[in-house]
């Protein structure tokens, strides 16, 4: 298996070098670019598995660049931003970025995010699934904005790990997912922020998804894993 190629767009030379080195040391091929023109050249030079892009590039704003890149290609995009504001995050994700990393970040978090995005099921990114809505049992998940809405229409806040866990459960709606598989999925996503066990995350999700008088549609299959016990619709 060939190593995935990552196109790194970052205007700060030192940070570009450091990021490239961190990725290379973790088994990725890196094609660095300082700004938009170099990025387009690098894209023409050969196939790229993922674009890691600083939002605040000189010349073009990263947002515009993301929009035009998304118009031409489905390549997964991870935004890097020094702004770290919630608005930026949502705008980036809505424009079709697959994830968002705030500066400053550590090697472990960076590699975990990159791996997680590369590992996402192809259909999720290729079918426009990122922009899509998933609904089950009255609940709605907006994958682009990473938001969950209750049957009553209220925003329900989940941590990143909880959201990913719920996404994994909906991906296999009505089928049991082995605990080990869930652990693997949540590990890649969480990076170094938490080592909470899947069981704790499941119990928190259950509490947050419990409705008035009825339980969350997540069932434990003893000795095997967990299952989302509700029909899942995608739109």
């Amino acid at each position: 298996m060939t190593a995935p190629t990552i196109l790194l767009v970052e205007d700060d030379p030192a940070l570009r070098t450091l990021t490239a080195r961190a990725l290379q040391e973790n088994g990725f091929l890196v094609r660095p670019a300082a700004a938009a023109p170099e990025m387009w050249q690098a894209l023409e030079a050969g196939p790229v598995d993922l674009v890691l892009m600083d939002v605040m590039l000189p010349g073009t704003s990263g947002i515009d660049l993301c929009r035009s890149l998304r118009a031409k290609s489905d390549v997964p995009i991870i935004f890097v931003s020094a702004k770290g504001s919630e608005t930026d995050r949502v705008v980036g994700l809505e424009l079709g970025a697959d994830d968002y990393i705030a500066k400053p970040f550590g090697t472990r978090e960076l590699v975990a995010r990159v791996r997680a995005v590369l590992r996402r099921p192809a259909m999720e990114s290729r079918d426009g699934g990122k922009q899509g809505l998933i609904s089950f049992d009255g609940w709605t998940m907006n994958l682009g904005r990473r938001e969950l809405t209750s049957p009553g229409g209220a925003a329900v806040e989940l941590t990143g790990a909880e959201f990913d866990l719920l996404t994994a459960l909906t991906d296999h709606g009505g089928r049991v997912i082995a605990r080990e598989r869930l652990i693997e999925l949540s590990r890649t996503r969480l990076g170094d922020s938490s080592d909470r066990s899947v069981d704790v995350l499941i119990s928190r999700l259950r509490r947050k998804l419990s409705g008035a008088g009825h339980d969350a549609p997540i069932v434990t299959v003893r000795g095997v894993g967990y299952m989302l016990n509700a029909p899942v619709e995608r739109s």
Partner: protein
Amino acid sequence: MRRPVSRLVRPSVGVIGQVVAVLLIALLAEFATSTFLYERASSFSVQEDEARRLAEHLSVSRQLLSLSPPAERHRAAASLTTDRYAVRWYTVRPPIPPVAPSLNEMRRQILNWEPGLRGTDLRLRLASPGRRQTVAGGLKLADGSWLNFRTLHPVTGLNLFGERALLALIPAAALMLIGGVLVRRQLQPLRRLATSADRVGKGGSDGSGGDHVPVEGPGEVRRVIGAFNRMQDRIHRLLDDRTQALAAVGHDFRTPLARLRLRADRVDDRATRDAIRGDVAEMEAMVASLLAYLGGNEEPERMIRTDVAVTAATLIDDAQDGGADADYAGPFHLEAQVRPVALKRALGNLVANATRYGSRVTLHLERDGDWLVFAVEDDGPGIAEADLARAVEPFVRLDAARGRDAAGFGLGLSIVQRTVDAEGGTLRLSNRPAGGLRAEVRLPYR
């Protein structure tokens, strides 16, 4: 050098001009009242006997003077002067006072009683109207000379009290009314100016500068308003510049921090590596709090129906994941209209403070009528009563009281206070009887 005054001051009547106008209008009102009063005087009637007595005296005086040789007439007139009437003789008609109401009705009464006085061109005037009701007048003798007279006592029945009062009151009332309206109109721009001045610096709706006060009113006021508007522009420019500069510094800090963070990962010595990571995390927290505090001019977040109970529980989950002994005490679900990011940041700051100073943290949530009540309690040292008010001020760190490990700029509580103020809520810090601090946030339940 800028000479902006001429640009802003359209030709206008100054305050002095307006005061003159007010006085002029009041004088006109007085004049109109007087004229009206004088017109009415012609229809005053006096008591019959008063008219009769005057008629008889005039009749007798006329005959006596007519019979006297002209050389004697001055003396004769003097002898006709009683303690009631003064009589004088003139060869020509004495000048009539410019404004003196004529007493047509009284004249009719006199002529009715003494028809002999008809054809003598009898004239009656109210002397010094409005003050003493004395009557003056004259009549022509056969040879064209004039007999003049004046009553020395007030004429009874000529009750001018009401008119006198009117004469005094109407101009005064008019003066007050017109003056009041005009002054009010004059002060209107000043009032707007005051309202606007109160708003300066409280964050414009779009951050592009506050409302300009319309330049109107008297010239002097216009100049003040013009100067105020320009000052307001300068203040907003200063605030914007400062905010943008600091925000830019904040953003630019993060790139070197990111480099440092990645470099730290390459340090072999574990203790050093962890220490550098800790430093980077602390600097990042400071930059984030500074940006959150300065970000007040950003477009406000929209209100979204949110399950605030889950938001609160998630904060506590995060604190537990960070190793804190934290608990959430409240309902599983509670939906309300809030600005979720701002709310999360505010509550997060309170929880972070609590975990920093205490070992056990509880986040309570309840709905109290029209209020959402969040309370973060810790078992730390609390805050000295004297410092409670100061604790929410920006850049204040009560390190002496709360240990020196405080990270950040001391903006945490200021950010909470600002968020709460924006929603019309309250933040209250208090020391718990059992020890530790209680930070209570009340937000309107919507």
